[in-house]
């Protein structure tokens, strides 16, 4: 026992010195006294105020970090992506990395939003123009739509009601994305079936219509989820 305690003495001394040096360093860098302000502290502040808080060297490190993080996230949410990137680089040494990821995700989401609107608009525009051009065949097209009505209704009810019910069983989940997606899919599918009834039967035309339908469905799903709650898209990297 005595031998062991004697052998540990140099180790204790070393650790005491290390801790003393760390304490002095933390004291002078003011990290020791830093305390993260609550989110309400930053609420309602303008971007200029946040930038001033983040830039002031007299503020403690956590206050500056919180202000820089809030600034970058606010700029990104407002669609000022270049300003958000610039602020992220300006305060890169003291910022929550989540803010940078959030800014990138919001920028990506805005690009996907434009692509989704474009895909949906182009596909529906071509479909409607085809239906107008072939208005003499609309009676037959309506018969075709009626023919697939039971299958489509079953699928969409299953998606909207069963999917929505399963989603709503979880703690904070919402059934709204499932219900709205199913509701908007109904006219979309009817338009595409009518388009296929009056459109060209050639393989290239059918393939093009199928691709347009897939793109429109994905675009619709994205827009529905984005409209309800964009945080739902975080799981998809958006």
């Amino acid at each position, binding site marked *: 026992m005595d031998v062991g305690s004697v052998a540990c003495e140099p180790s204790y001394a070393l650790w005491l010195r290390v801790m003393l040096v760390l304490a002095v360093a933390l004291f002078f860098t003011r990290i020791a006294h830093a305390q993260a302000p609550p989110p309400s502290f930053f609420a309602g502040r303008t971007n200029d105020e946040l930038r001033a808080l983040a830039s002031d060297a007299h503020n403690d490190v956590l206050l500056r970090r919180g202000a820089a993080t809030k600034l970058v996230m606010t700029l990104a949410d407002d669609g000022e992506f270049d300003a958000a990137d610039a602020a992220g680089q300006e305060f890169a040494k003291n910022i929550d990395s*989540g803010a940078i990821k959030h800014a990138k995700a919001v920028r990506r989401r805005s690009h996907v939003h434009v692509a989704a609107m474009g895909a949906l608009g182009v596909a529906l525009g071509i479909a409607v123009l085809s239906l107008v051009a072939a208005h003499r065949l609309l009676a*037959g097209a309506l*018969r*075709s739509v009626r*023919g*697939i009505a039971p*299958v*489509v209704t079953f*699928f*969409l009810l299953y*998606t909207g009601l069963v*999917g929505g019910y*399963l*989603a709503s069983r*979880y*703690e*904070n*989940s*919402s059934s709204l*994305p*499932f219900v709205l*997606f*199913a509701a908007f*899919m109904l006219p*979309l*599918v009817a338009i*595409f*079936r009518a*388009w*296929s*009834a*009056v459109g060209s*039967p050639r393989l290239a035309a*059918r*393939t093009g*219509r*199928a*691709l*347009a*339908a*897939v793109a*429109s*469905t*994905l675009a619709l*799903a994205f827009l529905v*989820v984005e409209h309800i*709650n964009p*945080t*739902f898209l*975080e*799981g*998809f990297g958006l």
Partner: protein
Amino acid sequence: MSEEDPVEQEVRPESVRAIRLGHGANCSSIGSVVDTLFASAVIGGAVLAAVLAAMRKEPITVVGRPEVSQPDLIERDANTREGPQ
């Protein structure tokens, strides 16, 4: 054992680094389940829409017996070509 709530003992405010909002908050597995469920619904809808958009035209179906048979039509056509003499 203390009489205090064990949860309050374990989680102190200063120990909380972040709180996530939204579906499946603070539990990634629940979020993943709902995301997967929605993704499967979207994929199913996309397949359904693609199949319907790629369908051929409705085939023309003649219902009932034609009033004029094929030989009669040929004969009538021949008479028409000869014209009134």
